[in-house]
């Protein structure tokens, strides 16, 4: 080989990576240039010194496999965390619903019974009054026995007052404004009555048969 090999080839020769014809050609060139032999010798010595001082490194695993394993681990962790959260949610939901289901039945029964009882109280009829076949202008003036009765006077001239005697408890109705009976009217001794003309009386002072009608 007459042409100088390139630096890459020389570097490969120094590292011992050349083979076959390529190695033969480089060695022919090196015979003509012995300084290369010295350079190779120096490189080998340096390499052996470095190997003695620095331990050999272990080749890392394949990067693709490492990435795959990391991603797989992440996915696994995510799945586990999601499963845990869903399980907790289901448990919290089911607990109160079960409780209310147990309570609902007796509460419903009690509420139904209460509704029926309240329904019986609605629109309770009042007690019927004592029937009377008297005239229509009468009123049911029902007052307790221990209270004073009520009084009504159709005539505006007549007024009424009711009192109760404190000692005896008797009830007295005081009427004022009534028309007085005339003095010449006889109330003693069963006065004669004429149904057609009302009452007829005979005055004791009048000796004649004069009759008065009212």
């Amino acid at each position, binding site marked *: 080989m007459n042409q100088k090999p390139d630096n890459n080839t020389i570097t490969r020769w120094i590292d011992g990576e050349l083979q076959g014809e390529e190695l033969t050609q480089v060695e022919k060139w090196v015979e003509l240039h012995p300084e290369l032999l010295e350079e190779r010798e120096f490189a080998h010595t340096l390499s052996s010194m470095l190997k003695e001082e620095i331990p050999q490194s272990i080749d890392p695993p394949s990067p693709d496999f490492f990435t795959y394993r990391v991603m797989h681990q992440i996915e696994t962790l995510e799945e586990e965390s999601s499963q845990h959260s869903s399980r907790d949610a289901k448990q919290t939901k089911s607990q109160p619903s079960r409780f209310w289901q147990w309570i*609902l039945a007796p509460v*419903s029964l009690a*509420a*139904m019974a209460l*509704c*029926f009882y*309240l*329904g*019986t109280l*609605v*629109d*309770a*009829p009042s007690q*019927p009054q*004592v*029937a*009377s*076949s*008297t*005239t229509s202008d*009468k009123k*049911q*003036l*029902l*007052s*307790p*026995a221990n209270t004073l*009765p*009520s*009084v*009504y*006077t*159709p*005539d505006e001239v*007549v007024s*009424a007052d009711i*009192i109760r*005697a404190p*000692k*005896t*408890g*008797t*009830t*007295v*109705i005081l*009427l004022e404004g*009534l*028309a*007085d*009976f005339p*003095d010449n009217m*006889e*109330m*003693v001794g*069963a*006065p004669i*009555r004429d149904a057609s003309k*009302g*009452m007829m009386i005979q005055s*004791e002072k009048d000796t004649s048969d004069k009759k008065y009608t009212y």
Partner: protein
Amino acid sequence: MNRFIQLFFFSSIILSTTWAKETSKQPLQKANATSSSQSAVNKDTGKEQIGKVKATLYIGFNGDISKLGSKAKGLKPPKQSTIKLLQAVDKLRFEHYRNLGEDVQSVFRSYENWLSPLKPSEEILLSYDSQGRLDNGGLRLDLELWQHHHKVMKTNPVLLKNKPLFILGPKWRGGTLIIAVELLELTDKAPKAHS
């Protein structure tokens, strides 16, 4: 489920209210039907006597009895117990009292009756009808006072035995007429009053 329960509640309320109304009407309807049918077949129980009342006409006056007329001397005074009751009230307090007349009549179960203490005169009349018996033995009446064929007063007293109702009436010959209405007797047949 919840909606079904709510619907059940509302329907139960409506049903129970309707049921209560219907059951409350039935006894009254049955009683009315029964009473009307019975009265049609049996006699009128309204004329049944349940008690007796008495109306007495007194005159209270001060001074000489002669101003009441010559016939007044034959008039009898009321009982001492009655005088005591009259004297207990200022407006009824007089020096003398005389009995002008009295009338006793029955109290019917549901019919009206009349008292005429000045019988046969109809100048003073009292109409009454029963409103029922009370637990204390009293009888409630619807009572009306008539003077000269005109109604002058209407009241609803409760009469008790030995406790007459006094009505201060018009004047005559310087004296004042006093009408006393009292319960003489009350049978167990009297219906109970409802308050």
